[in-house]
């Protein structure tokens, strides 16, 4: 390189300056998009799991109404799917800045309570009326005699079926699992080449739903998943093994072969378009889905009804799952008191109804007064699909519905529910069973893994 000293030096300097300037310009332009909130306003963060655009819009309306009354508070809502919410909560807690309020599952709430992270919600319960809270959902996050979480809205997993086909074939309501399989088989249809054009049942293969169903089926079979005294898993007990046998039979006879790859909403598509005759894990939302996707004229309760679920061979009563995320308020968040004020406002009848009406059959009221309110009931979709709502209430009134993986309310006291749920051990157990492993073996394998996990977490008491 032939460059004399002076030229080289000058060039270097110029280059240095040029680079420096460019970098400086770039960096300074970044400070423009930074949002800085005015110091006086309090920003309350509320995270929830209702991602439906209509629900988010209604929630925003409620927020706007609240902000009018409290000009010094700004509420920022975020609607996320549960998996994403978990990830964000983890990050937020790790960084020491949890949101002020968030949805959680019953087991999540229990875990957080056990670690002392939650603010009590006794004052909220007092404002909305302790007796006004619907009895079946009081236990979602009620510990040591106090409320630590009040569900935003409850509903139940339903058995949805093609009423028209059922009636046409003159079938009877199934009481036991074996009856159920027979009914499902009767509703199947094949084409002239022998290929199935309608399956008896459609189940979601995603982890959360398998966890839910195992809990439900075990309860419906008179069994339990954990020993209450020691917390030891009881997967090898007869009732649970029978659940696996049931799964095997379903897999071999009435489920589509690829059901493990089906998502929750795929099952609704299958039902709505006639590819499946029944859903065991249907929820109120499905009504909207059916109206949208079912062939013209069939999107109504005359074609898609609900019936009581059967019970297992070792059980006497049926069971279902409650889907009712409690509101959790974090003690160490920035504005827990303001969040509590907001939740109180949220439950006010006029505001609450706005929220509930966005998914009428699914978002049922936690408060008895709202359940009875004419304003709430005067919703077209609610009236149309009342049969489904009544079935929800049936399970609730009879105390037949429990949260995910909970077969008895006291299970909520166990501190490792959240980890067992997330580990996929129960899901793997089912996958092993339907892929050919003998039920007893699959149960034993899952039992060993669960015991090991609980031990590792430090909760072994047996």
């Amino acid at each position, binding site marked *: 390189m032939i460059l004399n000293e002076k030229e080289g030096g000058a060039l270097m300097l110029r280059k240095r300056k040029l680079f420096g300037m460019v970098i400086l310009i770039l960096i300074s332009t970044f400070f423009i998009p930074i949002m800085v909130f005015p110091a006086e306003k309090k920003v309350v963060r509320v995270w929830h799991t209702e991602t439906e655009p209509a629900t988010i819009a209604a929630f925003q309306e409620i927020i706007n109404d609240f902000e009018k009354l409290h000009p010094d508070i700004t509420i920022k809502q975020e609607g996320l799917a549960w998996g994403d919410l978990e990830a964000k909560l983890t990050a937020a807690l790790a960084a020491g800045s949890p949101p002020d309020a968030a949805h959680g599952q019953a087991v999540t709430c229990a875990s957080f309570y056990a670690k002392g992270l939650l603010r009590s919600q006794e004052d909220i319960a007092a404002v909305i009326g302790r007796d006004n809270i619907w009895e079946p959902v009081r236990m979602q996050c009620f510990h040591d005699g106090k409320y630590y979480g009040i569900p935003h809205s409850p509903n139940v997993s339903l058995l949805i079926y093609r009423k028209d086909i059922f009636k046409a074939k003159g079938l009877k309501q199934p009481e036991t699992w074996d009856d159920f399989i027979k009914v499902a088989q009767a509703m199947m249809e094949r084409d002239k080449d022998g290929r199935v054009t309608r399956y008896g049942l459609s189940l979601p293969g995603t982890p959360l739903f398998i966890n839910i169903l195992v809990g439900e089926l075990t309860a419906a079979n008179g069994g339990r998943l954990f020993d209450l005294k020691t917390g030891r898993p009881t997967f090898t007990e007869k009732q649970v093994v029978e659940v696996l046998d049931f799964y095997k039979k379903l897999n071999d006879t009435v489920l589509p072969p690829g059901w493990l790859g089906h998502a929750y*909403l795929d099952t609704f598509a299958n039902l709505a378009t006639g590819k499946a005759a029944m859903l065991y894990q249907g929820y109120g*939302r499905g009504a909207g889905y059916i109206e949208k996707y079912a062939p013209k004229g069939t999107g109504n309760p005359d074609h898609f009804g609900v019936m009581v679920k059967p019970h297992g061979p070792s059980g006497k009563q049926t069971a279902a799952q409650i889907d009712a995320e409690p509101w959790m308020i974090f003690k160490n968040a920035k504005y827990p008191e303001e969040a509590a004020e907001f939740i109180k406002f949220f439950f006010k009848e006029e505001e609450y109804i706005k929220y509930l009406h966005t998914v009428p059959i699914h978002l049922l009221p936690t408060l008895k007064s709202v359940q009875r309110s004419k304003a709430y009931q005067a919703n077209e979709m609610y009236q149309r699909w009342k049969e489904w709502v009544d079935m929800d209430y049936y399970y609730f009134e009879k105390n037949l519905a429990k949260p995910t993986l909970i077969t008895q309310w006291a299970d909520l006291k166990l501190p490792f529910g959240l980890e067992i749920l997330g580990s996929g051990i129960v899901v793997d157990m089912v996958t092993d069973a339907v892929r050919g492993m003998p039920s007893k073996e699959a149960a034993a394998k899952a039992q060993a893994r669960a015991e090991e996990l609980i031990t590792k977490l430090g909760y072994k008491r047996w």
Partner: protein
Amino acid sequence: MNRWRLRHLSTRGLLYVGAILLALQAAFPFFWMVSTSFKPPTEVFAQPPTFIPNDPNWDNFHRLFTATGFLTYFRNSLIVSGLAVLLTMVVSAAGAYSLTRYQYLGREKIAGLILCTYMFAPIMVVIPFFILVKKMGIENTHFALVLAFTSFCLPFTLWLMRAFFKTIPLQLEEAALVDGAGRVRAVIHVILPLALPGIIATSIFTFILAWNDYIFTRILITSDELKTLPVGVQDLFHSSLIDWGLIMAAGMMITIPALLFFVAVQRYLIRGWGAGAVKG
């Protein structure tokens, strides 16, 4: 002569077959996406599947633009990705130039170190990164996102640009310098034209990497107004009454502007751009 002709024709034939296959494998899913975005909900599940919608309408698009924050997400994605590309390309071009043109102690070691930082799975870096950003006080800002994107794009763009710069013979610069041009001019007139395809390719990758990021945006951003497209679309997908038509419409709207951009830019990936600079 005939044998040549035949050979030439069959090679051309194969070429066209190859090109068509290439176009098809990319275009078919795209076409399916476009088709579904114009279908009403009931037709989405029709069996047999219809390729041309029987009843095409703009409903899905209408809902996309009015009932969702799509336009906001789009704008945010554009801003953040654009800034990330700018920052990354300037810094990595300079860095790559340094790694290939200058000689200094530990040069290759630095390159190796940079490669190492790339090997740590982004998914595991997210949470500590969030903590870092929180400490800096910039969580929930676009600035934090740009930094995040830069952090995982830089190692990769540096190495790629380094490879491209290496293919440019040093002789060219030296020839220019001998002819009396300053280093800066040598770079602009000699190196840049040869490096341009590489720079363009790398910018495209950086843009796409930033454009597609999901996990960092999900963790770092909480306000709806600041969300980018992938997070926005994911929320739409998980919103309970899934709307296939809507999702496909969103996919289409995300792809078409980028496609148009690439049609415009790909013409710079032509042969002979400055390749005549060195002779004999």
